[in-house]
């Protein structure tokens, strides 16, 4: 398991969502903290990656590569906001 930053998800998330979300603000559904995706800690493995809240560990974003498709989940992000 490799620990990276939210920056590392820019390519995968852009492919699925169509925009680069690393400066997007996420509201953690676990503790309510608000922070940029780019500064979350990402745990990467051959199965995929998860970005966790730095405060409470809630899984904010998941990226899983399956044959022929890439899945993105936002299980712990209660809301997202773009920096103007």
């Amino acid at each position, binding site marked *: 398991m*490799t620990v*990276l930053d939210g*920056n590392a998800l*820019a*390519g995968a998330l852009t492919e699925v969502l169509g*925009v680069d979300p690393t400066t997007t603000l996420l509201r*953690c559904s676990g503790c309510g903290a*608000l922070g940029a995706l*780019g*500064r979350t800690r990402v745990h990467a493995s051959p199965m995929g990656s998860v970005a966790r809240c730095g405060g409470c560990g809630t899984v904010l974003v998941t990226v899983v590569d399956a044959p022929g498709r890439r899945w993105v989940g936002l299980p712990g992000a209660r809301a997202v906001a773009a920096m103007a």
Partner: protein
Amino acid sequence: MTLPDTGLEARITPTPSAAARRRPAWHPATVVAVSPETPNARRIVLDVPTWPGNDPGQHLDLRLTAEDGYQASRSYSIASSGDATSVVLAVDRVEDGEVSPFLVDAVEVGDALEVHGPLGGWFVWRPGVSDRPVQLVAGGSGIVPLAAIAGAHADAGDPAPFRLLYAVRTPEDVFFRSELARAEAAGVDTTIVYSRRAPDGAAVPAGRLTREALAAAVFPPDTGALVYVCGSTPFVEQVLRWLGELGHDTTDVRAERFGGS
């Protein structure tokens, strides 16, 4: 209501999103130059005719396709910035890696690759946006995006005070020697810490970076410096811990960790 101080809060800076200006996409690329950067790393220059340009500090995903259709992709920081359609990478060989040994040992001028980018709006610095002092901290090949930032600062004649702390093993392991010398001449206060062997006649003997050496080299917390840290995951975690102990607001530090691949 007061939110808990969780470390997840980001200070919002009013910089326009890079994504808004340069939309990431897959682009065909051709290798136009390769040269040894260090005994263990190689500089690779790509010609990407459709490249929209990139901001200093951004990265790209590079995809290799084997003859049997097998694909592998990895993220690499970009050492160049601006509107040019040539893109400079410097790749360190990870011994048991899947992609980097190919890029360091096997890729040749004329080879075709695919790149996805420019990526990342977080680990980015643009000249003229802010007059905050900027502290760059690099471990090993973590210098790549920071060389782009220091170079952009020098090229723009940007007035923000800049410092670079660069931790490497030996003098031969220094990336971008001439580019960093140019940035230093343009006012980037540069400290290089050698962990295994220092140059002949160096005032400071070789040794691992310490908290005291970090404190001596970086802007003090009360300068409000914007800090960028890039290197291996253990290096970045150690530097972040020390910066916190020295009184820096680590929720405002921009970090880019890289794993091995």
